[in-house]
């Protein structure tokens, strides 16, 4: 009876057969991806742009895709010796699909001119923006991040503490719950005109809005997490001599953590929305502002570049939160993979 420790943690063994060793499969997949990217590089370099266009970065873009092809080929060969690089095989179908998409985009814009300009710039125009306007973009990323991080951190902290308080204390529940029910469902952006008027700076106003947007879901989920803790957990701790403080810190909060993280995810999502709206309407910095500014100049390539960067940032932050959750909640089984 003592040997029933779960074995689900170990990976299933790969199928064995001709060309089925992980190294060989990784090599084939990696080389296929490299070949596709090389073809894209050739297409960009040797198929001339439409005569009336003057895309400055066509050759650089071709070089970039070519470099990627070389890197992929190297990684594919290195995968024979370094098992860590064999992940390339799993990524190969996506890398190929991405290359095909890029080739199609390049063809209908720069090469054939089928899509109207300036609304649909070719990929090299976005590369041009990223390279030429990098100082402004970096400044915008930093400004957005500073705003988001401050607001999110404040909102999550206040939301967490409030949630624990109303989940635990009857008095806190009596006084805070009605306020939460009344104000919570109001979209944070509805406060926008008022916030910019009340707060001394648009920066502090935006922090307030982001904190509000983050705080509501974090509060509600933390509260429901704390309120839903199995009462047997408390019985156990009480018979073992636990104080109230211990019950809150070592029983209620850890037991509520899975709920808290759901709240943190929801809060992060809404905080992105509020961040962009606040930057578009009031703050004179950040990626939201950049989008608005680019629209004013009908600089669509700049907008695509900003959107791309924004997508990378938001997705990166969500991934970061997932990693944190996986680390803290490794005791849970069957987590959703991001």
């Amino acid at each position, binding site marked *: *009876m*003592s040997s*029933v*420790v*779960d074995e689900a943690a170990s990976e299933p063994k790969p199928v064995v057969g001709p060309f089925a060793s992980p190294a060989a499969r990784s090599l084939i997949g990696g080389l296929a991806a490299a070949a596709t990217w090389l073809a894209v590089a050739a297409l960009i370099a040797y198929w001339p742009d439409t005569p009336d266009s003057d895309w400055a970065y066509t050759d650089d873009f071709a070089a970039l895709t070519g470099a990627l092809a070389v890197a992929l080929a190297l990684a594919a060969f290195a995968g024979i010796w370094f098992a860590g690089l064999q992940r390339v095989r799993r990524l190969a179908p996506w890398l190929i699909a991405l290359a095909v998409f890029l080739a199609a985009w390049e063809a209908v814009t720069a090469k054939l001119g089928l899509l109207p300009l300036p609304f649909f710039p070719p990929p090299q125009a976005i590369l041009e923006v990223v390279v030429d306007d990098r100082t402004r973009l970096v400044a915008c990323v930093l400004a957005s991040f500073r705003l988001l991080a401050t607001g999110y951190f404040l909102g999550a902290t206040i939301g967490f503490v409030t949630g624990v308080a109303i989940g635990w204390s009857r008095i806190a529940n009596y006084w805070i719950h009605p306020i939460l029910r009344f104000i919570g469902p109001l979209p944070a952006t509805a406060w926008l005109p008022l916030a910019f008027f009340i707060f001394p700076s648009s920066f502090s106003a935006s922090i307030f809005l982001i904190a509000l947007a983050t705080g509501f879901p974090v509060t509600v989920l933390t509260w429901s997490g704390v309120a839903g803790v*199995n009462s*047997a*957990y408390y*019985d*156990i*701790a*009480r*018979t*073992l*001599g*636990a*104080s109230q403080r*211990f019950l809150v810190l*070592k*029983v209620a909060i*850890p*037991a509520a*953590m899975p709920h808290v993280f759901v709240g943190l995810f929801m809060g992060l999502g809404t905080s992105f929305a509020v961040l962009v709206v606040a930057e578009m309407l009031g703050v004179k910095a950040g990626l939201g502002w950049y989008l608005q500014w680019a629209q004013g100049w009908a600089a669509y390539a700049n907008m695509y570049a900003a959107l791309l960067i924004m997508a990378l940032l938001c997705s990166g932050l969500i991934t970061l939160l997932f990693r944190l959750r996986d680390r803290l*909640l*490794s*005791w*849970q*089984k069957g987590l959703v993979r991001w």
Partner: protein
Amino acid sequence: MVVAAAPSERAHPVNNSPVRGTTLTIREVSHRFDLEGQPLPVLDRINLRIGRGEFVALLGPSGCGKSTLLRLVAGLDSPSAGGLFVEGKAIEGPDPSRIVVFQDPTLYPWRTVWGNVALGLEARGLLRTHRERVEDALRLVGLSGFANAYPHQLSGGMSQRTALARALVNDPKLLILDEPLGQLDSLTRITMQSELVSLWQRAGFTALLVTHDVEEALFLAGRVIVLSERPAQIRAEIVNALPYPRHRGDPYLAELRHEVFGHLGLDATW
């Protein structure tokens, strides 16, 4: 109905290890729940005295109020009438000298086996000075190799042994067992019963076991208290003088079993 008179301690096969257990007196205890304004009587004037280091089993039909009685002994609830006393002192709340092992192991899923066992010491601020007791308790239940496992990785028997270690680490004077083996498969159950007896013999605590398994009660306990249907009253008390270690096939146990079934009104099926 036979009301349990306080028996002299020598009459029962008491632990021969240095006795650290406590006495427990239950005096005229009645309890009722309030179910939507309707009082639901659960316990009816229970009188019981348990000696130092004794192993007593409470046996009764399910839902008769056995677990309620245990919650009162643990100090998790207070009785509607009557009193419970440990060493002559009234029970007023939970205390780490009286530990309950529940039917459901209820381990904290976010803590490792080690962390779960360390819970009581941590709650009382003793962990820093008494770390070795966690390892001792794990060794006692045979889980030394699983200190870093999480509860979801354990089998039912291992979870229940962890729960037992979590209780034993506090060196309880009274161990309250609320059908602790009820959810285990029959083979694991038989192994764990023997383990419980040897733990009790080594550690010298007083044990109060609730079960609805007649064989389990007779195999483990020196005295079996048979309870009636709800509201529970003490219907009979059976002294089992068989020395430990016991053998399940002992004809004396079969005899006692017949007697217990009689008290439960089930002797026709025997």
